[in-house]
């Protein structure tokens, strides 16, 4: 039963992250996911200090807010201070993450959190924190319920906003010209990333979140030229990594999160080498049409 709960948890996180990650990598913003997953730390700590509980709801709200603040700050430094996008991401999240660490160390006595747990999580403990009602009904691990709810929200978001997200990701200028608010969809996407990060951090940790945000989408990108197929494939790759990673960890008697991230990396490497269309080894050799001189001039 434990194996089931752990793999289910991993799969739920993989689903949310892989779906959102597809948009992030196509917007060339994969590292924003990295930034958000670290920068939410002070939000989590403050929510914890204010409410004094490890309830998911205040933490989700606290971290969600910080995630949105992070994206605002990144945009702000980039746009108004004219700092390069990657530098602006780097400054923002290291600074916020550092504040989170200071908060943890200052309030060490009161905060039952440590930075290791935030970075690496502990998916092995998922089955221990059960949701048991007064009538002694056992609904399974709490985390699974929180993550299940978030996964539902993300799937709903992507279904409802499918065409808007697709259009604003591919061609934001055209989208704005015909009347879509590109910043609205950008911030909605970033809020979704923040929400996912917070819901997942306790169980799988920030590093696995980043791995799921980038590796399965990047792998799926190498396998298909169809965006819907890319979304579905990346979810499947993420779930496969969760299951295979779990058994790898059991076999090695090692960290589950680490093993899952490793499998995701192996998937990418295999596809990178052997993808029928874009792989390095088996690619059907296509003769690229030579660039016309006039194109070079234009």
């Amino acid at each position, binding site marked *: 039963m434990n194996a089931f709960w752990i793999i289910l948890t991993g799969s739920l996180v993989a689903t949310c992250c892989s779906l959102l990650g597809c948009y992030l990598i*196509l917007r060339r913003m994969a590292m924003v996911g990295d930034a958000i997953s670290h920068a939410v730390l002070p939000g989590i700590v403050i929510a914890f200090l204010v409410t004094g509980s490890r309830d998911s709801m205040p933490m989700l709200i606290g971290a969600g807010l910080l995630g949105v603040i992070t994206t605002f700050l990144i945009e702000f430094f980039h746009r108004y201070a*004219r700092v390069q996008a990657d530098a602006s991401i780097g400054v923002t999240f290291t600074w916020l993450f550092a504040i989170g660490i200071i908060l943890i160390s200052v309030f060490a006595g009161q905060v039952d959190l440590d930075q290791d747990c935030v970075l690496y999580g502990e998916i092995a403990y998922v089955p221990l924190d059960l949701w048991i009602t007064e009538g002694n009904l056992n609904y399974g691990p709490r985390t699974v319920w929180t993550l299940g709810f978030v996964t539902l929200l993300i799937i709903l978001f992507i279904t*409802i*906003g*499918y*065409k*808007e997200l*697709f*259009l604003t990701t*591919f*061609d934001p*200028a*055209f*989208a*704005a*010209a*015909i*009347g*879509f608010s590109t910043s609205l969809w950008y911030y909605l996407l970033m809020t979704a990333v923040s929400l996912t990060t917070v819901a997942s951090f306790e169980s799988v940790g920030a590093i696995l979140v980043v791995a799921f945000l980038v590796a399965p989408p990047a792998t799926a*990108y190498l396998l*298909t*030229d*169809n*965006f819907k*197929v*890319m979304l579905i494939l990346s979810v499947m790759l993420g779930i496969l990594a969760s299951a295979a990673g779990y058994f790898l960890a059991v076999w090695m008697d090692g960290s589950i999160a680490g093993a899952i991230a490793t499998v995701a990396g192996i998937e990418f490497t295999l596809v990178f080498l052997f993808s029928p269309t874009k792989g390095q080894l088996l690619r059907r050799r296509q003769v690229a*049409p030579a660039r*016309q*001189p*006039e*194109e070079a*001039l*234009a």
Partner: protein
Amino acid sequence: MIVQVDNPVVEVHDLTVSYDRKPVLWDIDLTLPAGALVGVIGPNGAGKSTLIKAMMDLLPTSSGYVRIFNEPIKQVHKRISYVPQRESVDWDFPASVFDVVLMGRYGNLGLFRGPRKADKDAAMEALEKVNMQSFANRQISQLSGGQQQRVFLARALAQNADVYFMDEPFAGVDIATETAIIELLRQMRAQGKTVIVVHHDLQSAADYFDWVVLLNMRLVASGPTEKVLTQELLEQTYGGKLTVLSKVGDLLRKQEFPARETKV
């Protein structure tokens, strides 16, 4: 030499646009007539792209305003379409030609609503107009420059707007595509649409456009082609180096002609 018209389709009033507080367009004041093919011409970095983006409200402006059909842009998005510079998007994006053309219909759909059969038919019809119907399922990464431009044009056509803004639609396309595009633009004009085209080739400008806007950070001229494309105004726009420029242009054109793409 700035000719104003009555009942303009586009009215730009005292427009100044800056990047980082450094103005790149100063005090632009112009009106464009309905049903015209308008060329926006000027040297590299003159602010041509900036001007059409500002006309569509894609950039914050330092001062001034733009009206389209005598209304603020927010009211008329559905009547506006845009053909961005080809390089402005990632052509390795996982999408097919048809996916991209269908985007032209998105503005008319509400939230929650995907494209319906009528939208798909309109997209297919637009592809036929640019002679790309057999490419509908092709990945956009597998298109030549001229084909990419046709796809962008088809997307705008599918929208069935009233004003079209096009940024360098003739840049880097083969001669067959250029002819096909100008033919389409003329048909659109015949249907009463207004098409505003950023263009950098002076030779063809006189032939293509009814109305020309000469730009070099400031507005040099705006008016009917025959009044505006004069040696004097062009020299003002290109800073007196026009003879050099056009000679170089002639040479290049002769050299590259045989190398043009013939693939349609």
